[in-house]
């Protein structure tokens, strides 16, 4: 490394090492990655960033609105489901990613959740993925009418809403960490 | 003389060059993409000032932040004022800095070292 390494600790990766990270982002069409704490305020700045980024790209109003609505849902889910950092709790940073390729806009979230939340959430995701547009519309109406506020009702109607807007399958993944927690990752695509 | 009144934006400063109300001020943040384009009216105004100088003009510079591109333009502004001053017109620059912003104070001090004209550095 050119000259400056003395000031940095031995743990600092060299700049050249970061190129593998760049390559990963490039390969997966990822444009923005935020990693850390999520709050109402932070969510607003992420939305504002996306707004400005898309301003330059002349999106159709419809597409823009869909992406924002999906983002709001996704981000709120992360901040609402934040797990208190008590002793013994694994430290897994929550992530939001925004990406874009020729066909789609891509939104990804990944955060830690309690294992008991996994089955209802998985069921909900599978249910939503199995329905067509009409089916989703009906499901949404049903859920709205029978609004359940219990936490174990998965992500409530948020997931249905996201699926309706995305109009594509929701890609998800649960990775167990230990007997209490898993990492839940979700990828949403919105056509350009 | 034209009156210049530009409202501040998130990346450009407020600029008031008003000889009628005797307010001459550049304040806020300066980080426009094209500093030459942004400051062109100011430079033009200074060229006009050279032709019809206003005695005892006080220019207040009260910036929160300016990028290096702006720093060059600020120097150009100060150099023009220096010339007008050296041609016989009394005038003054008042450089303001927030009391917690020692960097801004130092920036003012540096400018006062580069140009020779009455320069007051004031905390606010």
């Amino acid at each position, binding site marked *: 490394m050119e*000259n400056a390494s003395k000031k940095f600790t031995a743990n600092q990766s060299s700049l050249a090492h970061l190129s593998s990270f760049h390559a990963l982002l490039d390969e997966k069409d*990822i444009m923005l990655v935020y990693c850390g704490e999520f709050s109402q305020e932070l969510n607003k700045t992420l939305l504002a960033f996306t707004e400005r980024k898309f301003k330059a790209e002349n999106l159709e109003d419809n597409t823009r609105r869909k992406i924002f609505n999906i983002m709001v849902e996704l981000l709120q889910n992360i901040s609402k489901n934040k797990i208190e950092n008590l002793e013994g709790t694994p430290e897994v940073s929550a*992530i939001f990613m925004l990406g874009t390729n020729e066909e789609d806009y891509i939104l990804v979230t990944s955060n830690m959740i309690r294992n008991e939340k996994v089955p209802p959430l998985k069921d909900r995701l599978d249910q939503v993925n199995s329905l067509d547009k009409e089916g989703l519309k009906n499901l949404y109406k049903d859920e709205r009418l029978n609004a359940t506020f219990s936490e174990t009702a998965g992500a409530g109607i948020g997931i249905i809403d996201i699926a309706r807007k995305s109009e594509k399958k929701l890609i998800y993944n649960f990775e167990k960490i230990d007997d209490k927690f898993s990492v839940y990752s979700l990828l949403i695509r919105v056509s350009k | 003389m034209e009156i210049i009144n530009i409202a501040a934006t998130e990346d450009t400063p407020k600029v008031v060059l008003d000889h009628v109300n005797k307010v001459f001020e550049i304040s806020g943040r300066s980080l426009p993409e094209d500093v030459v384009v942004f400051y062109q009216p100011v430079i033009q105004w200074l060229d006009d000032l050279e032709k019809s100088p206003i005695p005892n003009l006080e220019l207040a510079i009260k910036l929160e932040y300016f990028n290096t591109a702006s720093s060059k333009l600020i120097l150009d502004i100060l150099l023009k004022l220096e010339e007008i001053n050296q041609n016989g017109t009394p005038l003054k620059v008042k450089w303001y800095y927030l009391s917690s912003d020692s960097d801004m104070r130092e920036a003012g001090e540096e400018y006062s070292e580069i140009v020779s004209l009455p320069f007051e550095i004031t905390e606010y």
Partner: protein
Amino acid sequence: MNTKAIDDLTFVSEVRKQMDDNRLMLSYRGEMSQEIVMALLNMTEHKLSQTSFDTSIKSRVFAVMVECLQNITQHSDKTSFARSNMFMIGYTDKGYMVYSGNVITHEKVEELRSKITRINTMTEEELKEFYKFWIKNEALSGKSGFGLGLIHIARKTGNPLDFDFEKIDDEHYFFSLRTLVDH
């Protein structure tokens, strides 16, 4: 029905690992414009405002970001490599790390390398004099770019500029810069 490779979410844990290993908070890869610069600044400003650090470190991070990002906006390749511009910010116990990277043409490499190397050897006093010299003499549309900006970054942080040139092809190099803004 999507058949693209991205349906595999294993990359998410890879991204998390990279972000964590490098202590990154935010990473942006793509086109750079004044709009994006302002958006990134606003995001970072917000993030920093939540900390209890004094205004000095925040304003120095801000200043370093502006110089790096506006330099990319002005001097980077706007065509095929526009999407390769990088900005990342991280936080370690030493302070904030600001990374920027962009593709440049090969003829700019030596000049940039020697400029930065020279700046890295200068004392505070020498940097001050160098800055005063440059501000009086640099034409704004300097072709090498980054004239005053680099000096300013060095003065603001008091730290050496960590940099790297990675060859992409005979015509292009990826220039990356890492600056530590410490407490």
